[in-house]
């Protein structure tokens, strides 16, 4: 029987070292230890495995942070769907062709192109998040997606959302000033915030308003007049209907004089961005958001000011900012462990990663995330997902538990074994309709209950052979809330950890 009490968690790695299994790692006096390595990895990425944690724990802390921030690949390793570079014209053609084939009375069971492309796009990103060896990059791409929001439901153009994701990937840990300059020319953004409708004759203020309110300064730091001036400066930016790429239409641009944040000139969009980059609020807004995403739900004005200064001094380089953030005393403060609530993406991707679940079809994972309130490429509004405590309502808490319970009860033994196993037998002889319905349900993989299969339950490659104490310390950021008897059986330990409320935290 393994019953973990608070002491084990308070003393963290020290207790592990004493237990013998990991004593080799405790020799280097400057090594950070298991729990801090877990903390760093779970905040930077999603669901670290024991092997990933062990690879860091012997390093000194600053060395580990530098390792995390070392060279990164700005391109996704997962092969993108074939259509991602299709122009807007090609998508419309597919939709029209589709309308014709269904129009003649034959029941054609194919997904309409838009929905199908949206599905494939989500699956592509989820696949990358699950498979990547640089989860911090994915976390940053998600951060930028939630900052410079655009959605499928408004743009109706999945190719543009793919391009936007590529843009975020380029700048994930790159330069924020370059990203901010690229955003007004981004086709998805031009569609999402009506930039394509913003013309000299009748400016559309949508993008200008959100640029000031949400992307840079924040409410209270500009006037309605500044919004109007910025809207005029961005007029003329549009997208080519056939290719879906950015074009600048000179004749639609308002070349007149504007007064923006106290400065006057014949400003275009780039000048507006330059003025915003000179305003101290811009760096603060980004750091405030990063703080909430990576450190704590409680803002610390002094620290945020200090990090914002680092950010501006580096010319808006993101890497030095993230380095300073991970090295900050607040990030390392043990009181800030288990202080953040996992987002749905964090919960689902992290669970799949840490359990080593083989999930060849990602649609069901996307559906789970959507059910928990985070449908990728479809933020609820331009402000993005509110995050923090709002992730957990009575409804989503129940949904989270249900998803995890399914993973525990009906899945996860090992590799593809389950596909030919029990559930297939059970399904035999059932009508085809029901069979389809079962396939539609969110079930990651098939197998036997982790909780009840005793020693027969085999864990995936990430957790196999790991002792009960390390499993608990890997999966939970603090002592479990509910005491559950596990008898030290690894499958039961994993099940208990996943169903504990503490698993919702990181």
């Amino acid at each position, binding site marked *: 029987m393994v019953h973990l009490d608070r002491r084990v968690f308070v003393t963290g790695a020290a207790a592990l070292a004493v237990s013998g299994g990991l004593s080799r790692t405790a020799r280097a006096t400057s090594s950070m230890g298991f729990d801090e390595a877990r903390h760093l990895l779970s905040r930077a990425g999603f669901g670290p495995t024991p092997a990933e944690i062990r690879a860091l724990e012997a390093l000194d802390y600053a060395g580990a942070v530098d390792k995390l921030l070392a060279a990164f690949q700005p391109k996704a390793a997962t092969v993108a769907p074939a259509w991602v570079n299709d122009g807007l014209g090609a998508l419309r053609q597919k939709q029209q062709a589709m309308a014709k084939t269904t129009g003649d009375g034959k029941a054609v069971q194919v997904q309409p192109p838009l929905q199908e492309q949206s599905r494939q796009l989500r699956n592509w990103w989820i696949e990358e998040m699950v498979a990547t060896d640089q989860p911090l990059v994915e976390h940053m791409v998600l951060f930028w997606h939630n900052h410079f929001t655009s959605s499928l439901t408004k743009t109706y153009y999945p190719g543009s959302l793919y391009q936007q994701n590529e843009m975020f990937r380029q700048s994930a840990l790159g330069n924020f000033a370059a990203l901010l300059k690229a955003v007004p020319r981004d086709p998805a953004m031009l569609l999402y915030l*009506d930039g394509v*409708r913003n*013309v000299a*004759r*009748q400016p*559309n*203020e*949508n993008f200008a*308003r959100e640029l000031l*309110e949400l992307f840079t300064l924040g*409410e209270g730091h500009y006037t*309605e007049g500044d919004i109007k001036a910025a809207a005029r400066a961005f007029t003329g930016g549009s997208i080519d209907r056939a290719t879906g790429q950015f074009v600048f239409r000179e004749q639609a641009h308002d070349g007149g004089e504007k007064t923006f944040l106290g400065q006057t000139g014949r400003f275009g969009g780039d000048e507006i961005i330059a003025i915003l980059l000179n305003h101290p609020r811009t760096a603060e807004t980004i750091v405030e958001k990063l703080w909430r995403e990576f450190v704590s*739900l*409680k803002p610390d004005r002094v620290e945020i000011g200090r990090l914002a200064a680092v950010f501006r001094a580096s010319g808006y380089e993101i890497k030095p900012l993230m380095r300073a953030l991970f090295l900050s005393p607040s990030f390392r403060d043990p*009181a800030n462990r*288990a*202080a*953040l*609530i996992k987002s749905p993406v964090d919960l689902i991707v992290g669970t799949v990663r840490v359990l080593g679940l083989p999930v060849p079809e990602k649609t069901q994972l996307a559906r789970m995330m959507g059910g928990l*309130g985070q449908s990728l490429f479809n933020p*609820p*509004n*331009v*402000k993005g997902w509110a995050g*923090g*405590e709002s992730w*957990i*309502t*009575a*409804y989503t*808490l*129940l*949904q989270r*538990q*249900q998803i995890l*319970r399914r993973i525990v009860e009906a899945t996860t033994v090992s590799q593809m074994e389950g596909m030919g196993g029990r559930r297939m037998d059970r399904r035999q002889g059932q009508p085809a309709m029901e069979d389809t319905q079962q396939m539609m349900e969110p079930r990651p993989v098939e197998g036997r209950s982790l909780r009840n299969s005793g020693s027969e339950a085999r864990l995936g490659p990430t957790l196999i052979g790991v002792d009960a104490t390390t499993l608990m310390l890997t999966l939970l950021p*603090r002592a479990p*809330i*509910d005491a559950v008897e596990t008898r030290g059986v690894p499958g039961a330990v994993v099940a208990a950890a996943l169903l504990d*409320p*503490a698993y*919702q*935290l990181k």
Partner: protein
Amino acid sequence: MASRILILVELRGGNDGLNTVIPYADPKYRELRGDIALPRERTLQLDERVGLHDKLEPLMDSWKAGDLAILQGVGYPYQNRSHFRSIEIWDTASASSQTLSEGWIAQAFQGVVVPKGAGVDGIVVDTNSVPLTGPSLRTIVMQDAENFLRQAQAMKTMPDRTDDGNPALRHLLAVRHEVNAAAVGLRDRLHETPQPAFAYGQETGLGRQLDLATRLVAARVPVLAIKVAMGGFDTHANQTPPHERLLGVLAANLALLRKNLMAAGRWDDVLVMTYSEFGRRVRPNASGGTDHGSAAPQFILGGGVKGGLYGVYPSLADLQDGDLKHTVDFRSVFASVAQGCWGLQRDFGLRQPQRLDFLAA
């Protein structure tokens, strides 16, 4: 204490009030609205000045029966045109320059001992629970009652542990506790409630949400308020077809709600109120849509409602930066609702809330 269940219907995105309740007799309406003006012959006349959009025809039964009140020109001073900020102002009954953290219904119940009832005071069927959020109320967000109960049953009812001063954990444990307490109260009541007499269209979110709201009211679950919502009102471009569709869906579902609650003998015990974060600009934009504006009308329905038009329609000849000037402060509406639904005298920070006697005392 008077006791009515408030059913809030949030119209998300900023409903175009000028094309909902139409000042058809004012020539300025057609002049200012241009292509998006509703033709005179499609306006359902309410009096010699204003009429309803014909897509709202299903509400005319209620109007003729005298249980539909229409509040005209509702808004607040120093209109904020951000969706998020403006709905927050409404949800927390704050002044434009003021930030409050508690919802207005939760504020109304500060210091009031709420009967234990079902173990839950407010039920939010959509996802925005701000009006009902605050320490004085136990509010749950529930999109599908069956699912909710099934899942709650599976969740262990363990005594809640200490949160060690961790706010994230405190929130998590508080929600868990709420779920367990609420589930116990709701389980038995919903179990034996029949389906609504008139089926709601299940293809719209509003229909599904009102279906659940109807069952909660019919089951006599003793809650203070139920909230539903309908999205899509942020009509910046080519607004006429989508806006007409939205009005049609809204009216059809509100009419069904009325018929169902009458059939269940509960129409006198509810007050239904629509609201939106703002109305829209008077002049359309170049995209055939409208941008964020200011004042707009609200619909109030219920068996105890004294039907009719309330307040004054804002003048089209006296605009402020191209926007309607509000004639009724929304906090006056909230004050009247707090009095009429729960017998609570509240001013929501207004020195002298306007008396709107759309409810019999």
